[in-house]
């Protein structure tokens, strides 16, 4: 009956929600990027340090629902040590997976947890929650590349009543 609910709130998601990774402050971050989801008020801060093109450390602080917090926590676990292009690629795969588009999920430890986000695709309005962290990080990295702005803002659209 509520199998699709169980599919979204998998144990692995709830685990990330209960104890989100990457919460430790990153006082010497190169970039701090804020995101929000106007439709629910979810707010996120993603800060990270770069060494050339490599993301060396990341901090994620999300005030939001189980899905956005879990997704941010998984992001924190995944992106450390990755290049900008790697991050972009992963985030594209996550996006496609969430939207139910055809995409091959790499047989790669990075995607062990991430693929648990698949359950969200049955709840189209929640996709934005799962994307928030990724959009915010990518925007931050783009800003950094474009000219090293140390703060960036991301927002998905819409809003509620």
């Amino acid at each position: 009956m509520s199998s699709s609910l169980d599919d979204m709130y998998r144990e692995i998601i709830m685990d990330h929600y209960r104890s989100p990774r990457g919460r430790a402050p990153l006082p010497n971050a190169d970039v701090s990027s804020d995101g929000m989801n106007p439709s629910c008020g979810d707010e996120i801060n993603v800060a990270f340090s770069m060494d050339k093109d490599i993301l060396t450390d990341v901090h994620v602080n999300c005030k939001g629902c189980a899905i956005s917090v879990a997704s941010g926590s998984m992001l924190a676990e995944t992106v450390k040590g990755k290049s900008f292009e790697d991050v972009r690629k992963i985030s594209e795969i996550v996006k496609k997976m969430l939207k139910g588009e055809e995409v091959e999920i790499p047989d790669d430890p990075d995607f062990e947890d991430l693929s648990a986000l698949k359950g969200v695709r049955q709840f189209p309005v929640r996709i934005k929650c799962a994307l928030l962290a990724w959009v915010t990080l990518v925007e931050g990295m783009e800003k950094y590349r474009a000219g090293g702005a140390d703060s960036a803002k991301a927002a998905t659209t819409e809003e509620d009543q």
Partner: protein
Amino acid sequence: MPTDTKNSSQPAGRPSSELNVDLIKADFPILEEKVNGHRLVYLDSAASSQKPQEVVHALSQYYRHMHSNIHRGLHTLAERATVAYEKSRQHVADFIGGVEPEEVIFNSGTTEAINLVARTWGEANINEGDEIVVTEMEHHANFVPWFMLAQRKKAVIRKLPITVCGHLDLSEIDSIIGPRTKLVAITHMSNVLGTINPIQEIAALAKKHGALVLGDGAQAAPHLPINVRDLGVDFYAFSAHKMMGPTGLGLLYGRRELLEAMPPYKFGGEMISKVSFDEVTFAELPHKFEAGTPNIADVVTFDAALTYLERVGMNNARQHEIDLTGYTIEKLNSLNGLEIQGPQEVEQRGGAISFTDPTIHPHDISTFLDSRGIAIRAGHHCAQPLMRAMGKVATARASLYIYNDRSDVDALVEALVEMRKYFGL
């Protein structure tokens, strides 16, 4: 079919005998929908109400038997449609306490009604240094138009704050509303807290300083008997879709002399008198504010929606809401740690009940409840300044109407208990 005892009232605390919710439920075909295998429990009427069968029927009947463009036609259908359209205007005028029909302007929603006032009266009357008072609990529809107007005009937005209990904090009101105040824009009932604001007292104070008062009736008009003259407001805006009527229709009441002095809002057919390449002159009220082909079908249908509400009786509706809100608050309070926003006194509030769970985010609450067929809303409810004042990013909101009863509330509370188990938090 609901009973008709328009002006009765009865002691609170016991289920209102005037209103037979089983019969009312039967008037709403959508309540027979199954959602995720459960019966639909619709607790989202503050966002938009469902429509009784006879309103949906009136809409079909309009298109089947009388559709035509209005006001300008000499043929039978045009005459039928025009008469029905103007009958609905008269009905609205009566419903809000017996104003003149020319004081009722049809438009597309509360949002547009307030924008209309900001763009016309506001544009003409707000100047640098003038003050516009808004409350901290306004819906964006009654905040952003004034914020933007103030920005354009270098006017000042003054804030009437709220107390921790979700009432307006009137302790400093004499230093907030004063000789520089040109307008007080205030919601009659909060869509988040349920709070019913003392518009009458505030309007009296505003009047003393020569300021106008705009009441946002989007939440109040569906749930309370309304008399705009008694309220003392100069403008009053509300939406048909929250009170049994169709989407796409808003209502603006404005005092005749104000409307007459205001420039038009939109330009086009129907609102002009003479047009040439040298000169344009405008029509009389209410046409001056209804440019173009109006939302004829929905205006005509709204007549049926008001008839339905009157047959139920607004006093009965209010009494039912008091009873059911009391019951809901009591039940929710029994859930450990669940926090209800807004006043707990049922006489001072309506049935929009916001709450938060200490560990489960409103989004997740809403998704879980939906899996049990229960429709509530989660988010900032278009009231970000209020959210900030309450220190929340979002709340869950269950909102009641006359087709809800204790069984709906029981379903909500049971599901919330289940939810806590489910998330194991």
